[in-house]
């Protein structure tokens, strides 16, 4: 069986399975429903008080059709998260039927029924008593379809370069796609009106390759990293709900298994260039469990308290790989031994949340919330007295040449207190004041503790006509109580290298730095007339890292958006929207060279440089919906356009002294991408049961990114020293595609 035949077989399998489900469901329906199914509601025993129930004719339908595509359908970006094969397809399938007595039902829905792109949801049960749910989902993630891999795969995660790179003429195409295939099974039982019990099991398998960089010293080799993951999740929950109180308990377990433990490669890129072999650890197996206990109690008619306590665990104990793959290095006298066979990594989490909400009088309401999330890291801190930095490195770091390192079990606790007071002067508006406090306590980080105080006011107004105005402004200040830039020295029990420079004193890392943040947003929703409605919003979010001499200086984000819809006729509506977003980041750094790179070491203000990144994104959309000929013909049209551009400007802040190293600051070529999609759909109802649908879509995508273009056509030897980098060469995502489809829908 050739590839095409095999491909076709697997492609039809889901469709076959769905058709089987439809057939079985139809048989089920035939058993359950009299043949002379009238349009009138049919009495059912489901209504215990004599309420007649109608079977669900509108929920059972099948839509099959034929699709044709033209253009650059082989481009990875086009099929990034989808699969649109040409030919026959089952687009939508829905089946819903009920037994006339007892109310038992069977429900089936599916979409995108192709080989790699499938979503199925099935359920059966008796309303209010029990429910069994099943899901099946497939999701592709394609990163590249035109990459070239010069290495030959000799086993799971093993790649060998066959001979000299220069002698190679071309290389096989490497498809870099990961496919997720997951199923789920859930059971819900409601033994009585108070109890609710649920159990879910959902295994998922991920297979494929993704690009990943590897290094053996100064040689960079990008290889297809094998993805052979299995993840299994089990959830169980129980709930008791009474009119005044609710108690919930749940548990969740997740097991992750990676079938390939390491990525290995061998073969010299060029004679004389180091880095002929290497090994990298891939994601280790891990497990996670958590419990959650929640309760809610109505204290008074309006006051309610809700609490959740959720402990959890994350563990990992994968066996360590050896220091190096190189047998020559391993046989050297004094080769270090591992301090442990595995990490025995363990983290404990504890989330607590308490919420009190209620009313004080007719016009005032309040909310008070305290939340704590603690991550205790009980992973042992292992001391590696010496280690091999690179597989090909002939040297072994030892205590004498400060290579001794130990891992730091990073941990943190985050606490939040939110107080909100609302005043409703009338039925149409709400004014609010709020105060929030956030405290972070960290272990093994620069800012051991930081506090952020946030205050703000808001106003929400809505009249009976639907006009609404929402405004909110808030101001916050975050201050680290102490900032220790040398915390990382704890990782060097024998001290750092004599060449090493101390940490730059003025550096404040963005996630811990002192910050002043101003945020404001205003939204207006305006049903101007009965036929015209519009909405607009403006948001400004500005963070200034005032005390940072180096590092991030500010993050500024502004966005303006609006949309409008107009009812041209009772069954024809037009709509459009536009969004502009501008993001600006600034950072300041200093070019520093330690004594191993420059004698004497270079660390002066002459090496300071600053970079500003500016992103601007425009997004347009518009279209119409029309129902003509008494809605027998339903036409839709939509056009969407999104264009983003990123500019990175860099400049040296001062002229360095003569003979000093000057920062080679230069602007980067802009990164841009543009996506357009025009889609037209016309659905004509021939009868009440049969309808035809015609769809056409035109998609165009282009992107410009010098960083990727330099690595083309599909591989390259780049850098100052030729032959020190080899990339897979992911082609730039750029395509134009036309998609036509004609489908027939039948409502049972």
């Amino acid at each position: 069986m050739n590839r095409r035949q095999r491909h076709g077989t697997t492609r039809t399998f889901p469709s076959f399975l769905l058709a089987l489900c439809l057939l079985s469901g139809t048989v089920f329906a035939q058993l359950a429903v009299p043949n002379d199914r009238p349009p009138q509601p049919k009495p059912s025993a489901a209504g215990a008080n004599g309420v007649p129930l109608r079977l669900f004719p509108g929920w059972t339908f099948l839509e099959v059709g034929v699709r044709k595509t033209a253009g650059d359908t082989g481009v990875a970006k086009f099929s990034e998260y989808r699969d649109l094969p040409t030919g026959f397809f089952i687009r939508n399938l829905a089946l819903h039927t009920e037994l006339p007595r007892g109310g038992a039902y069977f429900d089936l829905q599916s979409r995108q029924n192709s080989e790699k792109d499938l979503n199925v949801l099935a359920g059966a049960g008796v309303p209010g008593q029990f429910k069994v749910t099943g899901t099946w989902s497939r999701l592709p993630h394609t990163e590249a379809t035109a990459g070239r891999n010069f290495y030959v795969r000799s086993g799971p995660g093993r790649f060998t370069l066959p001979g000299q790179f220069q002698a190679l003429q071309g290389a096989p195409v490497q498809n870099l796609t990961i496919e997720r295939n997951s199923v789920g099974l859930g059971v819900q039982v409601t033994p009585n009106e108070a109890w609710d019990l649920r159990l879910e099991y959902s295994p998922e398998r991920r297979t494929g390759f993704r690009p990943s960089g590897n290094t053996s010293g100064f040689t960079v080799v990008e290889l297809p990293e094998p993805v052979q993951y299995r993840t299994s999740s089990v959830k169980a929950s129980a709930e008791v709900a009474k009119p005044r109180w609710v108690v919930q308990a749940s548990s969740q377990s997740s097991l992750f298994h990676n079938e390939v433990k390491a990525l290995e490669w061998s073969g010299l890129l060029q004679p004389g260039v180091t880095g002929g072999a290497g090994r990298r650890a891939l994601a280790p197996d891990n497990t996670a469990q958590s419990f959650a206990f929640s309760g809610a109690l109505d204290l008074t008619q309006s006051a309610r308290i809700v609490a959740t306590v959720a402990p959890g665990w994350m563990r990992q104990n994968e066996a360590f790989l050896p220091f190096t793959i190189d047998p020559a290095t391993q046989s050297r006298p004094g080769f270090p031994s591992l301090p442990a066979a595995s990490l025995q990594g363990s983290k404990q989490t504890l989330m607590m949340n308490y919420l009190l909400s209620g009313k004080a009088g007719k016009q005032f309401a309040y909310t008070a919330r305290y939340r704590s999330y603690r991550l205790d890291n009980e992973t042992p801190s292992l001391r590696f007295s010496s280690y091999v930095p690179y597989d090909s490195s002939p040297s072994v770091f030892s205590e004498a040449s400060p290579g001794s390192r130990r891992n730091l079990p990073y941990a943190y606790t985050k606490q939040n207190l939110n107080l909100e007071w609302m005043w409703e002067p009338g039925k149409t508006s709400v004014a609010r004041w709020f105060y929030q406090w956030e405290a972070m306590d960290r272990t093994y980080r620069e800012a051991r503790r930081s506090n952020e105080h946030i205050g703000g006011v808001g106003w929400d107004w809505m009249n009976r006509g639907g006009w609404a105005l929402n405004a909110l402004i808030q101001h916050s200040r975050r201050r680290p109580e102490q900032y220790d830039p040398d915390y990382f020295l704890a990782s060097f029990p024998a001290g750092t290298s004599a060449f090493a420079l101390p940490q730059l004193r003025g550096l404040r890392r963005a996630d811990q730095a002192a910050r002043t943040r101003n945020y404001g947003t205003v939204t207006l929703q305006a049903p101007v007339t009965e036929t015209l409605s519009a909405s607009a919003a403006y948001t400004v979010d500005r963070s200034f890292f005032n005390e940072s001499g180096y590092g991030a200086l500010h993050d500024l984000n502004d966005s303006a958006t609006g949309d409008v819809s107009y009812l041209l006729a009772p069954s024809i509506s037009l709509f459009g929207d536009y969004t502009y977003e501008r993001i600006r980041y600034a950072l300041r750094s200093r070019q520093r060279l330690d004594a191993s790179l420059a004698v004497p070491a270079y660390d002066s203000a002459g090496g300071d440089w600053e970079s500003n990144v500016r992103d601007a994104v425009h997004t347009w959309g518009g279209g119409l919906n029309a129902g003509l000929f008494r809605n027998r013909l339903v036409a839709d049209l939509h056009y969407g356009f999104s264009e983003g551009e990123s500019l990175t400007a860099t400049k040296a802040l001062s002229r360095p002294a003569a003979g000093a190293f000057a920062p080679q600051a230069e602007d980067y070529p802009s990164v841009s991408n543009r996506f357009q999609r025009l889609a037209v759909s016309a659905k004509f109802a021939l009868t009440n049961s049969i309808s035809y649908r015609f769809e056409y879509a035109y998609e165009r995508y282009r992107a410009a990114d010098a960083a990727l273009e330099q690595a083309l056509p599909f591989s390259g030897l780049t850098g100052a020293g030729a032959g020190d980098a080899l990339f897979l060469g992911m082609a730039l995502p750029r395509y134009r595609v036309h998609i036509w489809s004609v489908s027939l829908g039948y409502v049972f």
Partner: protein
Amino acid sequence: MRVPLPRPAREQCWAGWLLCALCAAGLNAQTPPSSPPRGEAVAIPPETCRRCHQAYYETWAVSTHARMDGRLRGAPAQRGCEACHGSGVDHVQSGDRALISRFTGSPAETIERACLKCHERGRRLYWRGSAHESRNITCTRCHTLHKKAETPQPGLRYQERPLETRLLRKQTSMEICLQCHLVQKARLQRSSHMPLREGKLTCVDCHNPHGTATPKLLTENSVNENCYRCHAEKRGPFLWEHPPVAEDCLNCHEAHGSVHAALLKVRPPRLCQRCHMRAGHSTLPQPAANRLIYNLGCANCHSQIHGSNHPSGVRLHR
């Protein structure tokens, strides 16, 4: 229009006795007065309402509420239309519109009370005090009980995988969310995005709009735990960890969409250089034509940026 009232059913009387017993036991001493004060012992069957409200009746009769009618909790005297609209005795007798609960234009509290009577449990445990509730966004802003019965079909703008819920005002749940969250709507159209516009994920996969114990209405206990649901390989614990990664994925990623690859907020190397400036290559501004800029940038070598379990992976490169 006056309609003759039905006689109370026996089961409704039993329910009344049960209710009295519960009250006597003090369990329901402070239950909100969601039950109508008048006509409690007499129920108006939906067939009675149908005589005047045929269209509403038809949409209700095929809804989940009709299928659940009489099966779950709620005062047995209130079933059918009365379960939400309250006692209809006076309204039926007089025809006065003011004597029945009508939700159009009603205060948010009135609407919520009708829904929460049965639904303040499960995923709605944290509704009161949530971001939406405190802004007077009521249940009926997103849901409708009187909707033509049909399975939602994906539209031109937003595909969506099948969901169990059927009582949304729009065809897809994303359309519901994005009618207010306009910036998020725009971000989904960006080059680097999660598969929301393809319909593989929806907003409710990460957020619970009914309120949670977590900020931003996240479904899990933290941002990272939310991400680990799909990216379990990044969960660790790792021997060598990257602290900002272990603390918050959003330190580097923009979840709703970015113009940069891998949902990064800033393109490498500038993203990394916001923090790393001790010495050497990470402190250099780096010319554009450089292997440290090409392709994956810093991750060309430091590919284990989410954590490494290799004994020599301290620099997150092995």
